[in-house]
């Protein structure tokens, strides 16, 4: 009995990891398509990221002659980190065998590792743009990271655990309660998501305007399969962040492996449908948010992220005061 349960868990883990890698470009395409609709354009279609990836994988890679091993290795490390993060987060089922490998603090660490490598790789070639992008990325992320940790701490205080599966279980299982502290944490998380994924008020993912770009400036030197991996990792990162948001703030409908041994045939399709609906809604909401906001000056970004930190700390304090 135990072994079938474990085998099912491992199977689900593999299934979730493959599903995430396959779906991540689709989510990016969906967000871009929604943005195009909101801007009264017809848009390239939701499959465009796949076409871009295929095109990039077929091209020959061009390297700067002074590129070091770090520069070559970074796309793979980046992709690996994001894939690992996506495997840790409970996306379709709660009790997957991989999820005890890291709690939320380690998850933040995985994102930080990827960030350090991409920033180092950007500086590796020695062009002005790469260095500029890396510095800006560090400015944004060193302010976003404490806010993200505070968001996780608020959720951990409510569920008395830093393990994501435990948090999701605690929030999804018991009856619906209005948590003001989680509402604050949710607002803070949205700000962190926008900043960390190079979305509009902080960075514009669709431009190569040198005065404003952050993420694009760092990956300017990459081409072909390396660029494809970097782009895919960005999609995975967006997917992972949205999955964290869903897990913390809308965990309803996720399947539990323990319960699934009895009726997993019905729980799993339900979980996947719930996930797809939530992803579609989250992508549309993200596009709407980006259409409503205007790109802010880079020096306003610290204030924006300071607001996220403030909201997350307020959430923690309100949890202490109200116990909710």
């Amino acid at each position, binding site marked *: 009995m135990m072994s079938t349960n474990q085998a099912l868990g491992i199977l689900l883990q593999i299934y979730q990891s493959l599903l995430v890698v396959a779906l991540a470009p689709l989510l990016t395409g969906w967000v871009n398509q929604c943005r195009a609709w909101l801007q009264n354009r017809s848009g390239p279609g939701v499959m465009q990221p796949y076409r871009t990836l295929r095109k990039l994988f077929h091209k020959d890679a061009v390297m700067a002659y002074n590129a070091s091993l770090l520069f070559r290795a970074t796309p793979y490390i980046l992709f690996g980190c994001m894939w690992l993060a996506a495997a840790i987060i409970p996306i379709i089922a709660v009790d997957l065998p991989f999820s005890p490998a890291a709690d939320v603090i380690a998850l933040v660490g995985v994102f930080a590792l990827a960030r350090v490598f991409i920033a180092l790789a950007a500086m590796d070639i020695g062009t002005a743009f790469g260095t500029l992008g890396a510095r800006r990325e560090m400015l944004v992320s060193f302010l976003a990271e404490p806010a993200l940790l505070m968001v996780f701490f608020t959720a951990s205080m409510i569920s008395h655990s830093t393990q994501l599966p435990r948090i999701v279980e605690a929030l999804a299982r018991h009856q619906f309660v*209005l948590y003001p502290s989680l509402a604050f944490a949710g607002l803070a998380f949205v700000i962190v998501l926008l900043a960390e994924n190079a979305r509009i008020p902080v960075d514009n993912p669709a431009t190569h305007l040198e005065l404003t770009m952050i993420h694009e400036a760092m990956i300017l030197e990459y081409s072909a399969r390396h660029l494809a991996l970097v782009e895919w990792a960005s999609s995975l990162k967006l997917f992972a962040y949205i999955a964290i948001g869903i897990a913390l703030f809308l965990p309803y409908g996720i399947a539990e492996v323990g319960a699934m041994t009895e009726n997993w045939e019905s729980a799993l399709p339900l979980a996947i449908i719930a996930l797809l609906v939530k992803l579609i809604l989250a992508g549309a909401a993200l596009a709407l948010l980006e259409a409503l906001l205007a790109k802010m000056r880079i020096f306003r970004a610290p204030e924006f992220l*300071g607001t996220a930190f*403030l909201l997350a700390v*307020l959430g923690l304090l*309100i949890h202490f005061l109200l116990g909710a």
Partner: protein
Amino acid sequence: MPYNIQIINLLASLLLLIAFAMLSQRRILSLINLFAWQGLVLSLSTFVVAYSTGQHHLYYSAGLTLLLKVLLLPWLLHRLMRKLNVRWDVETLINIPATMLVGIGLVIFSFNLAAPISQLSESITRGLIGIALASVLLSMLMMLTRRKAIPQVVGFLAMENGLFFAATSATHGMPMVVELGIALDVLVATFIFGIFFFQIRETFDSLDISNMEKLKDD
């Protein structure tokens, strides 16, 4: 927890959030709109307290809050702003991130201060005294850090909002006479402030109250 308490807790958190938003706001127009939103949240929370405790006079004060603080006072302030032509007031004494940090400190201070008080209270919403105290202190901070007259007045009015919230959440509201008196006071104060604004501007050609320091003779 019953749903009415959850809703009151949520509204209290919103009140605190709006107090912080006011503190971070650079434009007078948005400041006045936020004040109107705060009034709405206050009115809603009073209504929920009235519903869940069955105290009828709280319905009246919820209605009074709605009428006065959501409709009349913001309208008056909007009119004043248009007449004085001060849409783009951006000056604060300390920069906004620093103000926010001080604000967090104030919240921690008032939560700590209110913890023993709220243990004495019997009412369903005793945890909210800390939040009410925090929004009073935050509004006071806004009055202190703003240089121009209109944001200071909005801070004053927001402070009254916090006090009112403390009264409804801790003791189910004050007697009707007191409430009416305060409402009238706030209304009259806003009228008088309006007249003051015109006087200040006529004397100094600006609403910067630091000019008033020159009035003393030494």
